[in-house]
């Protein structure tokens, strides 16, 4: 299948999942399910950062316009994730290993390294997301608790999604 067509289909898939299911899932103040972050993590390892950020911007903006909440919140945090992805990928892989990799995944990186990769990406996203949403350190511990709880939930959801839908069996 044409790569760009594949990306567009994934785009629609994650958007639909987020808008129709996860956004309406009311798990309380502390848990904000946002597994759409996986969309960016599925791109090939050598995919240019500039294009990655453009995908992130388009996705975040569509999500903000069609969804509820503060406009631009998802956009800002997702663009940061896109910008930091290649750096994080370089951090979790052994030097020189990156050239042989196609797409980051369990088979290529191993479970531990891949989980770390996902975790760092979600941390980048959530840091921007929750800081911008509260826009102050007025309720610092409250915001921090939301950050940690959502982080755990989303890393779990992303790993689950990855195993279920996007992992090629050997």
């Amino acid at each position: 299948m044409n790569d760009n067509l594949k990306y567009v289909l994934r785009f629609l898939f994650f958007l639909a999942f987020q808008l129709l299911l996860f956004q309406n899932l009311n798990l309380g103040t502390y848990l904000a399910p946002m597994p759409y972050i996986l969309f960016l993590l599925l791109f090939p390892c050598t995919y240019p950062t500039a294009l990655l950020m453009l995908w992130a911007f388009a996705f975040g903006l569509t999500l903000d316009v069609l969804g509820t909440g503060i406009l631009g919140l998802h956009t800002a945090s997702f663009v940061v994730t896109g910008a930091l992805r290649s750096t994080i990928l370089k951090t979790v892989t052994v030097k020189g290993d990156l050239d042989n990799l196609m797409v980051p995944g369990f088979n290529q990186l191993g479970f531990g390294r891949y989980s770390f990769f996902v975790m760092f990406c979600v941390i980048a996203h959530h840091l921007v997301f929750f800081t911008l949403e509260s826009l102050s350190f007025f309720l610092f511990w409250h915001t921090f608790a939301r950050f940690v709880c959502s982080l755990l939930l989303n890393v779990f959801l992303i790993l689950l999604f990855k195993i279920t839908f996007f992992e090629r069996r050997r």
Partner: protein
Amino acid sequence: MSGLPPLLRKLLVLLLFLALQSVAVVLVVNNSYFQQNAIMRVVRSWQTKWWEKTSSWTAFTNLRKTNNDLFLENTRLRAELARLSELELFLTAQDSLRMAPTDSFSFIPARVIRNSVNRQRNTLIIDKGSADGISPDMGVISARGIVGVVSHVSEHYAMIISLLNTEQRFTAELKKTGTFGTLRWNGIHYRKVTLSEIPLHIEVNPGDTVVSNDFSLVFPRSVPIGLVLSGSLKQGSFLELDVELFSDFKTLRYVNVVSFSGADDLRKVTDMDMEEAL
């Protein structure tokens, strides 16, 4: 882009990042101050069309609860009607000086098409707008208490700043003593708000009712809001009370927008007062 030297390429990526990020941050800042501007109005009108579609899919799940609430409210209104008509009979019977109320509250029913409770600044969208007589700064109440204040209005939709919004403050009073204070949400639980600035000498017991007052010309008087929870906190020379709301914002479906016909007149008077004081 691959033909460029790596330093220039990195610089371009950085510039692109800054451009995209600044667009996003400008959006966040504009939107969080609820400034009404042309772009937002266009976006909101697309949003509301889409939301109205999705809300009609989800409305079914809450029908039973909503029906029950409507039934309760009907009962209450009927009782109120009976009481008032009796009063009217009594008044007209000894009619000598007719004191017709010149300004009064009227209610515009509306349906909530978008709602949230799990953010720090929650807002609602209702399906009535300026065409139905709604304008900014009107109060919004439901069958079980106050809901919020209209922030901006398009022709057929209006956006409401919810009571569950950490930036918004309301006045409310204790029903028993009539002492008024400031009501605000602490951003944590969707059924708990705080009533502050109650003087220390006021005796408050857990279970006391908190009602709205009409000082701000937004809500009618004594709409029930909630009950005082145990454990009041002393903040300087004032009490800070935890209040449990009667209304469950998660199941909010139908609301009434409060339109006060004398509001403009009264505001003119209060403005004049302010000028004189200066």
